[in-house]
């Protein structure tokens, strides 16, 4: 287990993409997120694990600029973006598909919201949908989709929004194992090709270790970063990676960090 990120780090570093500098959120008497420090390097793939209600989503909201933290700030590319949205692609825990837009319309939402969804955008959206099993549904409204389909559309929407930094809040929670593997692989491909920086929340420790450069473990309420594990497994990783002793080892490290209790 590596040491927790030292709180006093200078906020701006070379090759640092994103700095969370003491961000914390309180609702009345409830501490939703204790003061948090984290530096994310350009092109890094970070996964976040932690018990339910520990503040993972809250942290994402803060980074996305949707919620002004009670304390601290968020710095991206050396600029303070605290409370300023629009700098990252954010896939919410809920899919938030727009009921009056078709699958294609939802995928190109980012383009439509920040300019115009061009023909090319729509064609790309349809291609994306077709590639990941939604070819028959490009003109469907969200209410006619299954849960997993909705989640995939939400992910495509986030990716089609072309941002350097991706915040993904349990993107594969509603997917079956096979589709999940496909999507993981695809995400890794996209990441490798485009060099984007990814923050990825998951409850699946296998998934956390399999995908990450670093796994960030958060403690139960009030949530704080408890441990950061480096994952030095070679890339590209495949299903075989899951069987290697290194992987098993890392996984059990993360698990034991996650749950101090010795029961079960």
């Amino acid at each position: 287990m590596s040491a927790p990120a030292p709180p006093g780090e200078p906020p701006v570093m070379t090759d640092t993409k994103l700095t969370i500098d003491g961000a914390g959120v309180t609702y009345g008497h409830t501490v939703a997120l204790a003061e948090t420090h984290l530096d994310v390097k350009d092109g890094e793939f970070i996964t976040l694990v932690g018990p339910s209600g520990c503040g993972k989503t809250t942290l994402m909201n803060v980074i996305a600029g949707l919620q002004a933290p009670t304390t601290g700030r968020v710095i991206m590319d050396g600029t303070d973006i605290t409370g300023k949205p629009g700098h990252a692609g954010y896939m919410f825990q809920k899919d938030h598909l727009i009921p009056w837009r078709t699958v294609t319309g939802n995928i190109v939402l980012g383009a439509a919201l920040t300019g115009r969804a061009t023909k090319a955008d729509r064609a790309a959206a349809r291609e994306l949908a077709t590639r990941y099993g939604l070819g028959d549904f490009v003109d469907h409204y969200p209410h006619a989709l299954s849960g997993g389909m909705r989640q995939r559309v939400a992910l495509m929407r986030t990716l089609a929004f072309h941002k350097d930094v991706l915040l993904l809040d349990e993107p594969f929670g509603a997917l079956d194992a096979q589709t999940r593997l496909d999507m993981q692989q695809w995400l890794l491909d996209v990441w490798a090709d485009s060099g984007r920086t990814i923050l990825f929340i998951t409850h699946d420790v296998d998934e956390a270790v399999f995908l990450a450069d670093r796994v960030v473990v958060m403690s139960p309420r009030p949530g704080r970063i408890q441990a950061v594990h480096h994952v030095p497994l070679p890339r590209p990783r495949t299903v075989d990676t899951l069987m290697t002793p290194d992987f098993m080892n890392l996984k059990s490290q993360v698990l034991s960090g996650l749950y101090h209790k010795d029961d079960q």
Partner: protein
Amino acid sequence: MRTLRLATPLLAVLLVLAIWQLAVTLLHIPPYVLPSPGKTWQALLDDWPNISTLAGHTLYETIVGFLTGTAVGFLLAVTMAHLKATHRILYPILIATQAVPIVAIAAPLVILLGYGLAPKLVIVSLIVFFPVVVNVLDGLAGIDTGMVNLARSMGAGPAKIFLLIRLPATLTPLFSALKLGAAYAVTGAVIGEWTASITPGLGKDLLLKNSRLDTAGVYADVLVLTAIGLGGFLLMTLLERLATPWRTRGTARRRLRPSTTSDPKDPR
């Protein structure tokens, strides 16, 4: 099923006529108080050339007033939703405009605006704008914040968020208001003609017939006014259907799908 659908409004008309006729017959209501449907119809046919011309005028006032009122109400609601200060200052004033009997403002209105179309439009708009303001404002306040946050996270500006998220999410209350407005606009036009005009119209005609105890003629006019109101209401209902296809359909209408790169079946 489809024929039944079309049949029910007809049934409604028949029902009204039946109740009307029954009331007249059973309660022995004299024709100068409430003429029978037959007498009214006769009066409508007899006076048709006159009524149809006047209906044109009234319809015009109704439509222009409705459009103006809707536009004003909508702009007010949007402004008030975005600027809390205007909200708190304007709202009491807007409510006040509804509590003031129009007759009380007729004189200043005429004196300021003369006897032309202007005061009539003001009166119709004054009646139409209010439901739009209240419904749209409440609709905007009740929006699911999730979608708005999603749009914000994408760095969308308020205008875009409004157009693509808030507005479509507010269509139900907006159309409720438009339906109310469409029904009220006719009454507004009639009141406008009564209080502030020398130009002709069904409202004036109604007043004339009323003062001459031509009750059948009054109800003939009322029949036409009702038809205008109903027509406006149904038009709004139809527009609502067209504007919210996702409520009734699983997939988008074909003409709403931009440039289909025809692959009807996913080859998986």
